[in-house]
């Protein structure tokens, strides 16, 4: 089963999304800020990262940039999640290296579609 790394500082978001993903059969690990997210992604064996963009320590864009710059994590698909929903957010996320982008509130079916699409590509 695919392993998802959820990088999210908001406790309720983490709790809710992780439980919903687990229900759908995924294995979910969680990081609470950008730095922890980068560290875990480097050391762990994850299939995909769900990255919140507004994060303490290192924000989502920077974390993504670092992961995409490092050879060992370059191929790890990253979906950016943001509640800001600004017009330029999507471009900014893709520019930073994200493979896809979604807004909160999460439409679970849509997100699952994006996850599956990226997992299908990488396998």
């Amino acid at each position: 089963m695919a392993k998802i790394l959820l990088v999210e500082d908001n406790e309720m978001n983490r709790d809710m999304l992780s439980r919903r993903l687990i229900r759908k059969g995924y294995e979910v690990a969680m990081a609470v800020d950008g730095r922890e997210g980068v560290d875990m992604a480097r050391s762990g064996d994850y299939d995909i990262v769900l990255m919140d963009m507004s994060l303490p320590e290192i924000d989502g864009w920077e974390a993504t940039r670092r992961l995409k710059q490092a050879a060992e994590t370059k191929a790890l698909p990253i979906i950016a999640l943001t509640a800001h929903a600004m017009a330029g957010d999507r471009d900014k996320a893709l520019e930073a290296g994200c493979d896809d982008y979604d807004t909160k509130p999460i439409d679970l079916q849509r997100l699952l579609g994006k996850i599956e699409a990226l997992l299908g590509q990488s396998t």
Partner: protein
Amino acid sequence: MTDPSTAHAPAPDPISGLRHDLRTPVNHILGYAEMLLEDAEEPTHAERRRALRETVRAARDVLGLIKTALPASRDDIAPEEIGSLYDSLREPQGKILSTMRDLLTSDGGDAAFREDIQRIIKAAERLAKPDAAVTSTAAAAEVAKATEAGSTDRGAAHVLVVDDDEDNREVLRRRLERNGYQVGCAEDGSRALEMLTEQAYDLVLLDVMMPQLDGYQVLERMKGTPATRDIPVIMISALDDVSSVVRCIERGAEDYLPKPFDPILLRARISASLEKKRLRDQEVQHLERVAQIIEAAKRMEAGSYRPGTLADLGARDDELGQLARVFDGMAQQVRAREDQLRDRIRDLRSEIEAARTTPADAETAVNGGNLSTGEAFAERYEVVSLIGRGGMGSVYRARDRELLEDVAVKTLLPQLVADETVIERFKQEIRLARRISHRNVVRTHDFGQWGGVYYLTMEYVEGITVRALIDSRGQLGVPSTLAIGMQLAEALSVAHEQGVIHRDIKPQNLLLDPEGVLKVMDFGVARLAKRQSAITEVGLVVGTPAYMSPEQLLAETVDARSDLYATGVVLYECLTGRIPFEASSPVTLIAKLLHEEPTPPAEVNRDIPPALSSLLVRLLAKKPEDRVQSAADLMQRLREIA
């Protein structure tokens, strides 16, 4: 990044932060609700499914509103718009809160389920709590400003929560404290009533269903006690107990709150009640201040107002303050005038005192009259003594058997009242005269006829006439004359205002009581003296023409200024001891009166101030239009001289 305690970079700009702050709780609500819906598959979960679907629908409504107000393309927003966006969210938010709270009460789900519902509630609460939930963004300050405006007054309002359920008390206490209120809690009705006597509360939240003393009874006692009657009471009740709520509102409860509590409703109703109370308190205070002014006016009328009493009120910036200042200023003037008069009266009193000790006391020298001492005139007035006789009749001091006080009874000469029309006209005049109520006017009581004798009853004044005073003293000093003049002018100004002209002002009609208070007698009585022309009837005419104005002598139109002429003669006589025109016969007197100029009093007596002298000359002008024009004006001029 909704946790304000976590340090992180600020949002790019206010609108982005606002989007984030609103979308995050919607995300939670939708996420948990959808997840719980997936679990609610049992047939027994119908109610749960309905509630969760409702919540999902409401959360999508919220999202729709956010998207409309804050489209992705938008990068600027005005504070008012933020305010109205939050306002628009209230309805769906309220829906989510009430649906989820109801579910918590009605659904016996397990702890995990309840915890998730609590999470939904918590998230929903954030949709309208910019002050607590989004402090990290620049928008938060704007939002707080926009939504909190006008609610600053609630400050340290004291709220008493009365509920037998500990959880309810706790929830309310915490919520109210978070909103900045001071909260007291009572676990039953008796304790609540006790606490209300210990401290002043601005508002009471009262549970309806309580053991022993229930909410209705507590309310009844509160409304029956003056000290607690005006404290607003909001009833707390389950929604299914509408009839009790109605009963409570009929009994004076301000409002009610359904259980479980909706924080928005709670806040709105509490601040509305407190605002109403604040306005009511303001109104009560205003009325108290008005009452203070009315009280001052009453005291003023009774002569017991002390200038300066309204100083506190006068310091106010509003209309009442202005009224108080004007009132107090006028009171001070009146007081100053009275002080001035009192000084003059002191001199007058000593002259009166001196006159009474001389053997030629006018009052004792009266003989004759038709009534005899001890006679019960008109079966009511017991004659004590004859105190005066004049051209119109006799005046007796008598004891009123009905009222047990002394009155003056004046009998009128039969020839004066022979004619019905004369009597009618006289009655009319007396009716007018009776309207004058002033300390310088002898009160007229009644007019009647007994045994063929027409009579008037009046206030009895123990004192002497100015006639007797002048006769005894020869002449009066300037201060005494001014005291007489000021009081006479005041009496005349009051009478003239009522349309009553005296027509016969002369020293015999002016009484002075031992305190120096002047009383003018016989208002309207002179009307009886029917004269086509006084000159032809001089022999018959009442009294002497010495005090009559030229227009009166010529039977021309008589008005208020004729009384002022007579006043001039009286004051002239007071100062100089003689009347302006003297002659051996009435005919010569009248000729002089009509054609000669009086000698200015200052030329007779050098001690008389020139201003006073020329004022008297003006009063004695032949033509009314050349005189001082009103008694009030005369009063003012005399005051200036004093």
